[in-house]
């Protein structure tokens, strides 16, 4: 009678966009292991969400914020999947990248001005041929642009990572995962601010390095 297939309730509830407080199993999130065991354990799916945007908010550069993503990027390039750096603030340094296990043949850097950086990132994400796209976008990037990146990551099934100043932590964001890297007591801490599919919002701080 009705030509339109009606999804079963179970299928509807299985949708990653629907959170069920009472569910004993967490919604399925496909993820790229971060390579940091303690961090993986805190993230739904056990890593950087695939086909989604993640934000890494850092208080200062040099706290190990880039180290956080290196194991995942290294394993992507070792699988011959491309990783793109968009508008990095300094020179990505080959000796350290190689030491982290990155196959440099699959790492690309795009030097783009403020107006072109978001466009380039969106193109790379949407193309479907990049494993991860890492962007250092203008600080004042708006919600709409972030939303575009989130959609591009979804359609290209890529892992989108952007680095931003921690002062934007209070700003609303469509990112699936938001992580804050900060320093106190002479140690670096990682804090999960928001994570799609995570039931408890009060994830404890992780101490990454002394």
């Amino acid at each position, binding site marked *: 009678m009705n030509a339109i297939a009606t999804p079963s309730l179970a299928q509807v509830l299985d949708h990653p966009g629907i959170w069920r407080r009472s569910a004993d199993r967490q919604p399925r999130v496909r993820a790229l292991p971060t390579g940091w065991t303690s961090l993986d354990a805190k993230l739904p799916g056990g890593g950087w969400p695939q086909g989604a945007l993640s934000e890494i908010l850092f*208080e*200062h*550069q*040099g*706290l*190990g*914020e*880039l*180290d956080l993503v*290196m194991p995942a990027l290294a394993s992507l390039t070792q699988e011959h999947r*491309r990783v793109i750096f968009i508008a*990095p*603030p*300094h*020179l*990505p*340094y*080959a*000796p*350290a*990248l*190689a*030491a*982290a296990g990155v*196959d*440099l*043949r699959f*790492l*690309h*850097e*795009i*030097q*783009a001005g403020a107006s*072109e950086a978001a*466009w*380039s990132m969106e*193109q*790379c994400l*949407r*193309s*479907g*041929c*990049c494993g991860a796209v890492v962007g250092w976008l203008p600080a004042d990037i708006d919600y709409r642009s972030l939303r575009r990146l989130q959609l591009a990551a979804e*359609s*290209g*099934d*890529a892992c989108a990572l952007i680095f931003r100043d921690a002062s934007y932590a209070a700003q609303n964001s469509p990112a699936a995962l938001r992580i804050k890297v900060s*320093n*106190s007591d*002479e*140690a*670096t801490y990682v804090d999960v601010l928001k994570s799609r599919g995570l039931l408890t919002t009060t994830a404890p701080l992780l101490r990454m390095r002394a």
Partner: protein
Amino acid sequence: MFWACLRFPGLAFSAAFAAAPEAGPSALLDQQARQRLIALPNAEAAAQGVRRGQSLAAARALCPALAVRPRDRDAEAGLLAELAAWCYQFSGHVSLVPSQAILMEVGASLRLFDGWPKLVAQLKDGLSEQGHAHTIAATPFPAASWVFAASADGMALPDVDGVRRMLGALPLARSGLPASTVTSLQAMGFRRLEEVFHLPRPELTRRIGRQGVGWLDRLRGEAPTALPAWQPPASFRQTIEFDGELDGSQPLLFPLRRLTRSLANQLAARDGGVQRFTLTLEHARGESTRIVVAMAAPQREAERLFELARTRLERTTLPEPARSLELHADELPAFRPPMRDLFEPIKGDGLDWTTLDERLRARLGDAALKQIELVADHRPERASRYGTPTAKVPPPPQRRPLWLLRRPEPLRHEPAVLLSGPERIESGWWDEDDIRRDYYIVRTPQGQRAWAYRSPEAQSWMLHGWFA
């Protein structure tokens, strides 16, 4: 054998007016004659009374707005060769018929193209798209195909007796015999070819000569027609000379489109691609401008080649107006269409890396896309550079920061803690860029890990990288 003949009545016009399409009444001039005579008027000029063989002065008197251009036989030959290249995709045996037709053997390809109606439709669509007026006919005999193409567009007649019957019904004027022969036969009272066919052979030879008889034999397929097979050339070079001078990129797009399309045709013929080609613009004074268009992988599609060339051209500032545009490609490597794994799921728009790379380059410029190469050099600023990473160079055993500052700068605060160091780096005396520095990994008061150095002479801290 089944021969298709493609005739291009407008070819001389297209060749002479290559830089800009003719608009309004126009005509070609015969250069061989001592006087300037009209060789070919277009339809608009003909409507105003301009006729072949008229003097230019007479034609101008009839039609003051007449645009004229000398007939350019070299350009015609080039254009015909270009069309042959395009035809090569339909048949392995393509032959040029000077100066406005192409013959090709399609008997062997008919099944591949699903029969004549589909093949002729493809030919016609392709030629119309390229803007060439044309007529096509096919018979088992090349000469007959050529004759029929003039009057019976789209006709295909595989039956030998049928072709001979149809030939017989042709009026002499359309038989392809030389005009003088036709006149003399008509003077003898002949009207149709069949009347001539019935004449005894010695009699016929006496009247129209060996050559005339030979032509009639070839028409009926009683003698073979020698058709040298055209071979696609291994490189591409084509120039369009402009009438005046063209300034700015916009007016250059029309000739550019023609050249890239012509290149694409040749590529299709060779089953090749092009990875790099050069556009050369000649100026009246001074150096010519060269624009190199390089691609990440061989390409062959006309629209894609045009877009790539266009973005490069639009980003180039011409020092002065251009007089001609040349497209030159030395190497036409084999083209391998992008392959997909049978089981690979298609993701997103399914762009491959080449396409993405080209899209980014087209908007951001070549210089914006970099790869990072590891170099075995002790000097920190030289151990990493933009280039093409190849075989793995082993990274140095010492800890190195992920960020290197483009230029070392003074460290803002005194380090809170020295985490490791010093590591003395002393190198480069051989190329007059020697350094002598003591590197430390330090923690700043904000908790950042920095890579900083002091030179043994100066005791101030210089920041060179971040352990980000």
